[in-house]
């Protein structure tokens, strides 16, 4: 979550779902909360019952829209224009919360003279290297301060040694720490906000072209509807009132997705809605424990707690790594203690001061190793083995065919899942065995399917969408050979260590030296999940559980598996297992589960109080300074040094948390402020700019630059990943419609947990596409008949659901018809159908490496798709008609 991280300091939702009940206005955009987070949606209904305005902005009228006060249909892929339009309204009508903006954001900070905005360069920022297709962000800095590029650092001197100019940027440095890690000395500020290079003025100029007219032309939102949204948001923000934004993957899954969230972050900071009850930005994650899987990451580019994964060719020892990744101010100044404690948790006794605590044992990045790059290395034959644990890429990943072609070129594949999912059987009954592109008898991949235990069959924790860990206890033994992921990983490691026990090869030391002694229990030797949690929490030299990351040491006397989770096992008690009912505590419910960091439920909540530490209003009180006690107190745990007075001002040479003043609520940031303008940490610009989706029927009305210039696309040129012409380019009319993918309440992501269950299947028995009556008439589609949807990648078939919930829009003077595609289906299971993600291309956001599946141009025609090789021929025919070559759509 690079955008929330760079804007506010931590890559997680700033608030929690229950707090939505305190909102006066809730804007749900890029999210279908009622369908995908129905349990949390009760708090939206609670707010509505109290009189809040609920607005749903979405291409489709969904079950969320049905319960909203206002549904605003927009063109998929145009959200930055819509949000930018509101920012422009807020700035030009002076609707921002001035005291908050002046003191709690970087609005007053003055930028370097070298900075050039999209306004100056017709749609790109200064520092664009058109050869490398990457930004050098040194011109995005604050004036008069030395910027240390802790994130997004370019490794140019090695670029020529590596394929395609692999850089540190491509190692997704943008996600590291979730914070820019800007090294700020003392920024020059203009308290009047009038200096032409201060962030506030830059912001004003940047968003001036995001007018209501542009919103109408680009998003297809009528001006009066837009005015209603502006009115509701601004009337419900300020000292007495707060508004919240809710988003999910409808924002992230674009080639400029991180900047969607950035736009909302700027807006919420301007309105003074961050860190306050009923405010915030609620990032709803895709499914259970996705937040957990970025905190203790399954991502290639991060270590636990958002510590960057070291790169192979820079900062190769502990000292230089820490020096590069630390800040002088804020909590990242303590990076060394977090990392050393992590290394102690990994390698225990073997990690000593003398050997850099085994820093050398950590794997090193040599470029981007995201799932999509990995697939290309499989196709190239460089990646020979693959573990799929709870993942079904043959259905769930963009351009699913590419995933299958990659797996077909492996030596071995291990699939652990509840059901025999498509990713385990593509070699015998996948789409390519039908077209002849994969022949079962020729395929050499050895596939191992191992049954997995469900969550009811094992102990463990979920970290939910609001950074809260909740423990689940095993209810029953897993059936047959089914085992937990913990069991599998532990025993796999144990057996590998046995096999290597006599090895003298230095390469095997990192595995042999691992602290791998977990207690096991029961007949199947299930590792004790509680012991793992205790290790994540950490302990001191005497083995006493730690209670706060402030206790972590740089000398190796503490071990901690994930510094932001430190405290989850405080006092030797599993804090995540706490279940004090909501009715017995306040709405913050601090004794239900445990949230990182330090059980704070609303992040940056120092901002709920004014400069003197008093709540901005009684109605919106959350935490406040108790002068008598000399402490912060209130309804939530203060996200601030507990005894730091609001009147504290640091000396010039102060370091770390002490370098932040009593009015710096964003304690992870180098300057303690919310970043309206991001001087470092993002790879595609310090401010959001609207770019069209990779495949779009429209040209960019705002800038000459059509697409995100640094989106990740050139590395994915492949005959099965062809891109389409856009806008006015010849051939773009071959794909005149815009499709968007999504989930239904009744099914779960790629279907592994729902398409095998009769009670769910009967509720949504078949794959369908949603189209408007206008589109049905235009293309001769029949209700509950069949349609074939075609992109430059694939042709799929779906039942047709004709519905007025799909609203035709007027965009750039012409009528746009959109298509809705739930992506749950595949050829296996109790309910089968084509996978919507076959249509999508692999073209990625450069910060998060997330694919664009929420907006793609396509065609639709009546009837079922062709069978066998004819299916491929149809796609090739479309490519020919559109004049598609391997160059198409790859232009910067």
């Amino acid at each position, binding site marked *: 979550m690079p955008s929330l991280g760079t804007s506010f300091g931590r890559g997680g939702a700033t608030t929690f779902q229950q707090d939505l009940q305190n909102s*006066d*206005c809730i804007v749900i955009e890029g999210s279908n909360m*009622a*369908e995908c987070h*129905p*349990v949390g*949606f*009760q708090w939206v*209904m609670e707010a*509505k*019952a*109290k*009189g*809040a*305005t609920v607005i749903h902005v979405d291409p489709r*009228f969904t*079950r*969320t*829209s*049905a*319960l*909203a*006060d*206002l*549904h605003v249909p927009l063109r998929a892929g145009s959200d930055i224009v819509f949000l930018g339009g509101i920012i422009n309204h807020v700035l030009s009508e002076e609707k921002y919360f001035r005291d908050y903006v002046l003191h709690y954001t970087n609005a007053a900070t003055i930028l370097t003279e070298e900075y050039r905005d999209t306004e100056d360069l017709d749609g790109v920022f200064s520092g664009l290297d058109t050869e490398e297709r990457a930004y050098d962000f040194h011109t995005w800095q604050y004036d008069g301060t030395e910027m240390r590029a802790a994130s997004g650092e370019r490794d140019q001197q090695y670029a020529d040694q590596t394929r395609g100019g692999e850089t540190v940027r491509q190692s997704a440095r943008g996600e590291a720490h979730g914070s820019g890690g800007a090294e700020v000395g003392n920024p020059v500020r203009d308290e009047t906000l009038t200096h032409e290079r201060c962030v506030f003025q830059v912001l004003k100029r940047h968003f001036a072209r995001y007018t209501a007219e542009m919103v109408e032309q680009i998003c297809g939102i009528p*001006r*009066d*509807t837009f*005015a*209603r949204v502006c*009115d*509701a948001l601004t*009337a*419900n923000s300020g000292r*007495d*009132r707060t508004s919240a934004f809710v988003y999910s993957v409808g924002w992230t899954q674009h080639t400029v997705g991180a900047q969607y969230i950035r736009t909302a972050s700027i807006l919420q900071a301007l309105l003074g809605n961050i860190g306050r009850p009923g405010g915030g930005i609620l990032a709803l994650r895709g499914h259970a424990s996705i937040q957990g899987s970025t905190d203790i990451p399954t991502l290639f580019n991060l270590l636990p707690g958002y510590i960057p994964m070291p790169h192979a060719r820079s900062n190769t020892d502990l000292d230089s790594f820490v020096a590069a990744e630390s800040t002088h101010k804020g909590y990242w100044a303590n990076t060394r203690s977090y990392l050393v404690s992590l290394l102690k948790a990994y390698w225990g006794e073997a990690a000593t001061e003398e050997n850099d605590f085994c820093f050398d044992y950590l794997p090193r990045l040599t470029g981007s190793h995201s799932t999509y790059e990995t697939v290309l290395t499989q196709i190239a034959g460089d990646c020979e083995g693959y573990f799929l644990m709870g993942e079904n890429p043959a259905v769930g990943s963009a351009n699913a065919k590419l995933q299958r072609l990659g797996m077909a070129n492996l030596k071995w594949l291990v699939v652990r899942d509840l059901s025999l999912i498509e990713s385990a059987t593509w070699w015998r009954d996948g789409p390519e065995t039908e077209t002849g592109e994969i022949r079962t008898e020729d395929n050499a991949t050895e596939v191992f399917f191992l049954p997995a235990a469900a969550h009811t069959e094992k102990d463990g924790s979920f970290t939910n969408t609001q950074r809260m860990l909740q423990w689940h206890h095993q209810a029953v033994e897993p059936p047959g050979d089914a085992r937990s992921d913990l069991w599998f990983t532990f025993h796999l490691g144990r057996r590998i260590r046995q096999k290597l026990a006599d090895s003298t090869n230095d390469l095997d030391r990192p595995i042999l030296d691992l602290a791998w002694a977990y207690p096991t229990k029961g007949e199947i030797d299930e590792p004790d999940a509680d012991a793992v949690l205790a290790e994540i929490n950490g302990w001191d030299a005497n083995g006493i559980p730690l209670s706060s990351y402030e206790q972590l040491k740089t000398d190796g006397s503490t071990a901690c598996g994930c510094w932001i989770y430190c405290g989850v096992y405080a006092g030797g008690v599993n804090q995540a297992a706490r279940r004090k009912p909501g009715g017995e505590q306040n709405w913050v419910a601090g004794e239900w589960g445990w949230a990182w960091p330090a059980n704070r439920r609303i992040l940056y909540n120092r901002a709920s109080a004014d400069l003197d530490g008093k709540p901005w209003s009684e109605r919106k009180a959350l935490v406040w300074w108790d002068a008598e006690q000399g402490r912060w107190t209130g309804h939530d745990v203060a996200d601030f040094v507990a005894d730091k007075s609001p009147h504290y001002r640091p000396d010039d040479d102060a370091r770390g948390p002490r370098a932040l003043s009593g009015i710096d609520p964003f304690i992870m940031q180098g300057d303690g402020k919310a970043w309206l303008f991001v001087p470092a940490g993002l790879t595609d610009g310090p401010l959001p700019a609207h770019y069209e989706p990779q495949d779009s029927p429209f040209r960019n009305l705002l800038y000459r630059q059509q697409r995100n210039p640094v989106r990740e696309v050139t590395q994915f040129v492949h005959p099965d990943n062809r891109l389409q012409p856009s806008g006015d380019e010849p051939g773009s009319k071959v794909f005149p419609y815009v499709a968007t993918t999504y989930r*239904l*309440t*009744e099914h779960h992501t790629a279907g592994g947990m729902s398409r095998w269950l*009769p*009670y*769910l*299947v*009967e*509720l*949504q*028995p*078949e794959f*369908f596409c949603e189209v408007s009556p206008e589109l049905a008439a235009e293309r001769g589609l029949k*209700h*509950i008949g069949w349609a074939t949807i075609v992109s430059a990648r694939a042709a799929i078939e779906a*039942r047709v*659901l004709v*519905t*007025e*919930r799909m*609203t035709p829009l007027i965009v750039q003077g012409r009528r746009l018809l959109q298509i809705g595609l739930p992506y749950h289906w595949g050829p296996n299971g*109790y309910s089968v159908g084509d996978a919507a993600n076959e249509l999508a291309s692999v073209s990625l956001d450069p910060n998060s490496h997330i694919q664009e599946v929420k907006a793609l141009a396509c065609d639709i025609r009546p009837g079922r798709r062709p069978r066998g090789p004819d299916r491929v021929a149809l796609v090739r025919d479309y490519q020919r008609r559109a004049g598609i070559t391997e160059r198409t759509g790859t232009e910067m």
Partner: protein
Amino acid sequence: MARLTEKTVDPASEAGYVDHPRRMGFFTDTSVCIGCKACEVACKEWNAIPEDSGPLTGMSYDNTAGLGANTWRHVAFIEQRKPMAYQEPGVDHRDIDGLALAEQGFSVSEAAEEFRWLMASDVCKHCTHAACLDVCPTGSLFRTEFGTVVVQEDICNGCGYCVPACPYGVIDRRADDGRAWKCTLCYDRLGVGQEPACAKACPTESIQFGPLDELRERAARRVEQLRADGVTDARLYGADPDDGVGGDGAFFLLLDEPEVYGLPPDPVVTTRDLSAMWRRAGAAALLAVAGAVAAFALGGSR
């Protein structure tokens, strides 16, 4: 609300229970239903109801189609060309320049969407006067101490009289075993102090379970509040003890006419006129017998 309570017939007492618990029921507030169908799944899971998969119906997101022997909760989805139930929020408008807004052509009614999507979870109504129970020859259908109506699968002989007797078309026979099935209001859960599975699973409290008199009071307040907020379509269905079934044990807050949801507008217990009919039939039979006797007597005398 005392008026309602006074008038309310107590079906459990009428059924002969002495010292019974309060009458329990459902208030389904469709204005907060999000159509998640958790009620359908929870009901099936708890009651071990067989699946009844079919193809895509094309009826919006409703693939269950209606209540039946294998569907005891059913969520209806209705797509309508009607303005959304716009709720005028408690926004402080003091800082807003109304004249400027008027110049822009801002208007709530104009801007309101001309489209809405209604969702409603239907269930057995557990009528005060339950025709299914009246016509059941085996005693399989019975009135519980909670005032609910339950069918016992080990007694039901599959005669099917109850099916046409239900004014709502709720109770239904299973094709494979012929016996009648419907919502029990989770009689087994009620017995141990738990709420029914559907209400337990409902995330937005659209399905509320509790003592019926309390639910009716709550529902009356909710309708009042919604109407005050501008949702003038809001109305209760099945809450009136004076209606044709003596009021429902499971009643609803609807946002449109009952017919829109597939509910009968004016349900009447089908056995209401039964005694009168029998009286008339009896009288007619007597008359016929008398006539025959008379004819015989007359003929005999000839």
